[in-house]
């Protein structure tokens, strides 16, 4: 693939497999300044791809460059990268400040005290900086890990599930921090498995499903694809044949299948219209509804639809 002149990260045909299990399959993408989200369900290969970008793992195939350089076996490039791993483990015996100081020392930051102070202020943990990390809540640990990640003021931040474990207030705060860091011209790549989480955070979204890149675009484009997908609804009632005959004429209904003696499987692309029409049709036909349940409302099925064009 051809990289644009502004691309900070270029992932070119990267695959990674472990003992015959494919974690990432032929992914190519570029990441430019601003906030880019890598979205996908758990097990989609997001972390493996981020680890390949960060040089923590060697791709089985393909190439990753950051600022035009390979990262693997090139530790000098980490001066320009702040990478926050997914797992939350830290050195529990260190204080929050000690942890950020350690990162600053290893990065050979010149104004160590100033950089540590600014980083801790950024994540709003000044009050708790002298407590041991072992006593921190999950959200506080995430924020202090972010402080350690940005203490050397890198132009690229790679954050694996940075909002995980945070409460709503912390989430809003971290979102604002990430947006502010991006507004200063940085490239920020975040991963998440929650679509709404990346709304208002990311300028661009790369959607990964089953190790493959399923879709790319801004939040609106991804949302539109979600809204366009067909929904399957299970409807249990006293007389499924009569209700199927009544539903099949509705504009919102694409197909109706009879499932057993009391059930229907209805497919619709306009679920809100179906929600309004279904009770009215049942009432008109004198059919009592006993159960209405969306069959494919899980995030995994949404991702699967976007990846393959067919839901479950």
């Amino acid at each position, binding site marked *: 693939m051809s990289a644009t002149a502004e691309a900070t990260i270029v992932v070119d045909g990267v695959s990674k497999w472990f003992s015959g299990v494919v974690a990432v399959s032929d992914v190519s993408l570029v990441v430019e300044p601003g906030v880019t989200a890598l979205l996908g369900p758990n097990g989609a290969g997001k972390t493996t791809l981020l*680890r390949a970008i*960060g*040089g*923590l*793992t*060697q791709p089985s195939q393909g190439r990753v460059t950051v600022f035009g350089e390979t990262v693997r*076996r090139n*530790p*000098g*490039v*980490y*001066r320009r*990268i702040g*990478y926050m*791993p997914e*797992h939350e*483990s*830290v*050195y529990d*015996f*260190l204080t929050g400040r000690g942890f950020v100081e*350690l*990162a600053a*020392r*290893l*990065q*050979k930051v010149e104004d160590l005290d100033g950089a540590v102070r600014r980083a801790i202020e950024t994540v709003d943990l000044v009050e708790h900086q002298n407590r041991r990390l072992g006593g921190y809540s999950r959200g506080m640990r995430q924020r202090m890990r972010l402080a*350690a990640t940005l203490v050397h003021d890198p132009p690229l931040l790679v954050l694996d599930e940075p909002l995980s474990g945070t409460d709503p207030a912390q989430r809003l705060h971290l979102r604002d921090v990430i947006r502010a860091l991006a507004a200063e011209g940085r490239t920020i790549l975040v991963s998440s498995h929650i679509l709404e989480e990346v709304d208002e955070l990311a300028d661009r979204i790369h959607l990964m499903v089953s190790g493959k890149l399923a879709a790319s675009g801004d939040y609106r484009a991804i949302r539109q694809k979600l809204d366009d997908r067909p929904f399957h609804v299970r409807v249990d009632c006293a007389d499924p044949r009569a209700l199927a005959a009544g539903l099949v004429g509705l504009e919102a209904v694409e197909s109706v299948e009879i499932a057993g003696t009391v059930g229907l499987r209805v497919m619709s692309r306009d679920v809100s219209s179906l929600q309004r029409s279904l009770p009215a049709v049942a009432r008109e036909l004198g059919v009592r509804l006993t159960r209405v349940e969306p069959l494919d409302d899980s995030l995994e099925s949404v991702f699967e639809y976007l990846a393959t064009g067919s839901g479950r």
Partner: protein
Amino acid sequence: MTAIFGLTVRQLAGSRRLWLVLGLVALPVLAALVFRTGESTTTSARFADNVTRTLIGSAILPLVMLLFATSAFGNELVDRTLGYLALKPIARWRIVLPKLAAAFVVGGLPVAASGSVAVALVDGGALGGALATGAGLLVGAAAYAALFTWAGLATRHALLMGLVYVFVWEATLAAYLDGVRFLSIRRYTLAVIHGLDGARLATIDNPLSAGVALVAAAIVVVGFTALTVRKLVRMDVP
């Protein structure tokens, strides 16, 4: 490198295994005190040799170094904190050397001090044997540190591998097979002690000269340090 050295010392010294190690390290001194205060049919030289050879050289030194050196990287692999070091602009040898040094300092120094004090107590305060014992134990500690630090990074079964090396290879095979003696850190340790003080360990059958033992120990240190650096460069960091 001081930041990683300090971090590793705190990791190793702050763990519960420190108490076990302190208990082990106290044993030679306790044995020496018992010898000095009680009646014994053996000579002080023979007792000092036995403590050095069987208690410290065969058990305490290798076990203490096994516990600490395998943890120098092993802890960070288990709790997945190695990334915090690997994701920094630091050449890999600059990560390995301070970790090795930390294992040597936290494990090797107390054992060497314990051995020296024990021998000095048994010898009635004579320093020659004590210093030779300390120096030999430090040579052994450095070699064990390099071997077991590599093992801690290279395999999840480093402790088992180390125990097999110490109790099967060094304690059993090396006692019967001449060739194996040249591949035994325990033998290097004892040979250096004997080389520095000819009166110490004179009765044991040790085919190595102190010079050969020092060169062999240096080869182990350099070789396994290089292997550890190579492993860290090539491995996937968890």
